[in-house]
């Protein structure tokens, strides 16, 4: 589909992101519940979700805080979880780099796994789309996701009770990530990159600060790029 208006691109992004509402709601509530149970007052719980907007690293910070780790260790561990977003930033740059500075600032703030992955997949599918339409699509994907992140953090903090593990809600996150990434594995190069990523991430799982994943990702990007170069 080619977008003829920014509104159309925005709506396409919103529509693509709608299914991920089912991940954001339980995940955000869980953060609200766990943070409150750890002893944080409501303002700090909300500040976490509003300023950091990155579930996995928020949970990491909480976990180290509940172990009374030194502040520097809390920060290093939680920021390491977010280092993958530097790669997101780099791979969005060919598409959004021409946008005005204030739009890039907002796009950076709103770069979460879902908005990134949906947008990158769409931009690769139709690379010729204009920058304003790409920006509109990106903010479309943000719209059903991030506001709910704030709202359900609040609801979790105020009324929440932890959702028992036997409901398997923890597994919604891996399922949605798989459902997002697998259709984007369009070529042999993509499949080889994915396989490299899995094998190395599993082998390097014990590397501290989540750095095993970054090593696996860089190696996997090299594998994908090399296969593409040889086959073209």
């Amino acid at each position, binding site marked *: 589909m080619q977008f003829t208006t920014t509104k159309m691109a925005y709506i396409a992004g919103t529509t693509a992101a709608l*299914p991920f509402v*089912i991940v954001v709601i339980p995940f955000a509530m869980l953060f609200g519940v766990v943070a409150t149970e750890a002893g944080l007052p409501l303002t*700090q719980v909300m500040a976490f979700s509003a*300023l*950091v907007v990155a579930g996995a*690293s928020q949970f990491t910070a909480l976990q180290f*805080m509940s172990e*009374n780790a030194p502040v520097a260790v809390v*920060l290093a561990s*939680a*920021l390491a979880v977010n280092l*993958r*977003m*530097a790669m*997101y930033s*780099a791979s*969005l*740059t*060919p598409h959004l*780099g021409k946008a005005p500075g204030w739009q*890039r600032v907002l*796009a*950076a703030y709103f*770069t979460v*796994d879902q908005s*990134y992955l949906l947008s*990158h997949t769409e931009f690769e599918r139709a690379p010729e789309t204009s920058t304003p339409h790409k920006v509109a699509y990106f903010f479309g994907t943000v719209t059903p996701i991030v506001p709910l992140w704030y709202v359900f953090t609040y609801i979790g903090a105020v009324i929440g009770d932890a959702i028992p*593990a*036997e409901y*398997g809600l*923890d*597994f919604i*996150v*891996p*399922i*949605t*990530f*798989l*459902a*997002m*990434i*697998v*259709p*984007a*594995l369009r070529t042999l190069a*993509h499949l080889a990159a*994915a*396989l490299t*990523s*899995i094998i*190395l991430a*599993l082998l390097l799982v014990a590397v501290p600060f989540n750095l095993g*994943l970054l090593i696996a*990702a860089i190696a*996997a*990007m090299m594998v*994908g*790029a090399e296969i*593409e*170069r040889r086959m073209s």
Partner: protein
Amino acid sequence: MNYTTTEIWLIIAALGVGTFLIRFSFLGLVGDRPIPEWLLRHLRYTPAAILPGLVAPLVLWPDATGGVPDASRLTAALATVAVAYFSKGTVRAIAAGAVTLYGMQYLLG
């Protein structure tokens, strides 16, 4: 938790600023400067290179089971991948994964 209120605010603020700077890094500093073709070629594989490695340990060693591999979660992951691969439909794949997960949990008690 034994932190002072100031320390907690420091953690939240530093994490917020640090995370923003990570997200802004390339988008902000490189902007519309040209990117060499070899680097673009690598960046095209970013999602395929990160997401599978991010998910694999969660599938094999879920936190919810204390890191013990779990039949219903493994089957659900396989069903999601199969449906996503053959139908290319994200929503269908999520539904397949969820139905498999709860179906297996029901069958296995």
